[in-house]
């Protein structure tokens, strides 16, 4: 908890684009209705906490729920894949109408878990229920009640937006009249009505993502799985998509289950589940996790090399983030006040980073969450896609 008192004026701070992007915590509390992913870059961690809880109070168990109980129930799930353990005794429960995030690095088992939940893969051991149906025994019911937004694009980019949706509708067995209505509805939802007959190949990444989300919502699923949903999207598009999804949650009790290795994606989730090497290592609200496991840092750039040396000497447990910048572990508000008193006039740049989930992950596993090779992988995939096009 960072009280405003010990915090310098926001306007006075230098915002740098150093990676990872920090979240500045302030205290401008707003009612939860106004809360949206749109302000992501300036979001308050306390607000996230507050808003998360508020939203979960606002959402009632949805009337359309066919069966009582949680949206997703997983008990003692184990899965081996290619001789390796992909999931090891995973248990979790996702409440209806909530937003649940699975956080973990690549290869942690997120996609394996989603595959099991989406009936793409059978579990070796354990009980898995989605929307009240057992994934093994009633896979058709499960598939009808879930919507999937995959990590990689899964649109047919040689068809138009409408044709992609029409295909989806037919495959989900929606009769003609209802199908046409559903297409109108979801296209309007993601503001792609004007692109109805455009071929998907001409779409930007964000438009494709929106179309995929529209498609996943077309058959009115109770649960929407979003596997790395906003990778490669600009902030504006990302904000708009989250705004849609949160509206869906409010309006019809849609359950969201997001997997990601981007912290930004999950800050406003109701619950976060951190998964690594096939095991759940922590679960709770973002606030809880940060409160219990997080660490604040003060990112500073000294005015002169001499000051830099003095800083290092004064705070031996600081990390060198770059040749110039230092990250100094910050304790409570008194620490910041004391620090400013001593070094306030010897700094070129200063930035406060409150407890982040990234920090949580770091302290739990001793590793950073996001590896730099992700971007390259994506670039390669896109290059391959272009090359493979006939």
């Amino acid at each position: 908890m960072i009280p405003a008192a010990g915090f310098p004026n926001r306007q006075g701070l230098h915002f740098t684009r150093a990676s990872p992007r920090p979240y500045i915590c302030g205290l401008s509390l707003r009612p939860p209705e106004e809360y949206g992913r749109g302000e992501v870059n300036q979001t308050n961690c306390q607000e996230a906490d507050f808003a998360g809880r508020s939203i979960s109070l606002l959402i009632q168990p949805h009337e359309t729920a066919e069966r009582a109980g949680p949206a997703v129930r997983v008990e003692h799930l184990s899965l081996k894949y290619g001789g390796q353990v992909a999931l090891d005794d995973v248990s979790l429960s996702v409440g209806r109408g909530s937003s649940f995030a699975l956080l973990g690095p690549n290869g942690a088992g997120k996609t394996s878990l989603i595959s099991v939940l989406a009936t793409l893969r059978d579990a070796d051991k354990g009980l898995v229920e989605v929307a009240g149906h057992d994934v093994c025994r009633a896979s058709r019911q499960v598939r009808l009640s879930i919507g999937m937004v995959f990590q990689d694009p899964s649109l047919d980019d040689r068809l138009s937006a409408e044709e992609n949706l029409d295909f989806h509708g037919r495959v989900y067995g929606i009769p003609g009249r209802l199908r046409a209505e559903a297409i109108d509805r979801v296209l309007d939802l993601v503001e792609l009505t004007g692109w109805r007959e455009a071929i998907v190949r001409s779409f930007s990444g964000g438009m494709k993502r929106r179309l995929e989300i529209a498609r996943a919502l077309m058959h009115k699923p109770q649960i929407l799985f979003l596997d790395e949903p906003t990778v490669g999207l600009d902030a504006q598009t990302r904000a708009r998509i989250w705004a849609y999804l949160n509206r869906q949650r409010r309006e019809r009790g849609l359950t969201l289950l997001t997997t990601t290795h981007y912290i930004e994606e999950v800050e406003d989730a109701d619950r976060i589940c951190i998964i690594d090497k096939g095991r759940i290592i922590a679960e709770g609200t973002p606030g809880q996790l940060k409160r219990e496991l997080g660490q604040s840092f003060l990112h500073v750039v000294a005015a002169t090399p001499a000051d830099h040396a003095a800083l290092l000497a004064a705070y031996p447990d600081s990390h060198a983030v770059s040749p110039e910048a230092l990250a100094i572990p910050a304790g409570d508000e008194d620490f910041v006040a004391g620090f400013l008193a001593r070094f306030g006039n010897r700094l070129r740049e200063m930035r406060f980073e409150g407890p982040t989930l990234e920090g949580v992950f770091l302290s739990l596993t001793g590793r950073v969450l996001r590896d730099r090779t992700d971007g390259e992988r994506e670039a390669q995939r896109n290059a391959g896609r272009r090359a493979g096009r006939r």
Partner: protein
Amino acid sequence: MSSFLPILRGIHGVWLREIMRATRDKGQLLGGVSRPLIWLLILGVGLNPYFRGEVFGEVRLVLPYSYLQFLFPAVIVLNIMYTSIQFAVSVIWDREFGFLREILVSPMPRWAVLLGKVLGGATAATGHGTLVLILARFADVTLTAPQVAQAIAYMFALSFALTCFGVVLAGKVRSFEGFGVFSNTVILPLYFASSSVFPLDPSLTRTQLVASYPEWLIMLIYANPITYAVDALRGILINFNQFPPHIGFGLVGIGMIGFFLWALRSFGR
């Protein structure tokens, strides 16, 4: 029974997508037209004089048909083979570019998805075969309406079997480039070793045949299922059979079921 209609709708959806893709793919259409033109207009016309009669009682092609007529059904089969087996590219495409997952998480059962896809591929291949029928006049093959209907039905069955075969191949090959090479090494040998471009004289006994062709080639031709597939289509189009036609029909029927089941095993893994 209540889940039957949605599945039909789904099969129709999958089929429709394949048709849209096949009809929009100019390259595929072009291939479907250029192949018969090359084979009939160029090869057929080029070789026709070498197979025609010069002296009464002496002839190189001891069949009651001109070379063009003889070649005509084989070119249809070639066109169908190409389109059907190349259809597997669509399966690889779906797998590589993620669309397959969209289909696999849908409530449609896997067999229905495969059926829709294969029906779509078979329809496209039949279309390409039917395009060749337009050239019947050129090859001096006169067709009646029932003959055309019979031929299209048979072509569809053959396309279905070959499309399933293509899906099986797609399961074995991981990349597009690999598949291009692979399909050519499958299609062309099957086609050439099928009594399609040179006739095995039905009036000759086996011993006489061996006198004109080496034993291994004849063995190859007898062992090649495409031989019988071409022969059955010849039976329909020019009323000429080297083998009992039911062998061809039987093989196509077995191929439809056998390859479909095999394809189902490899599809979506």
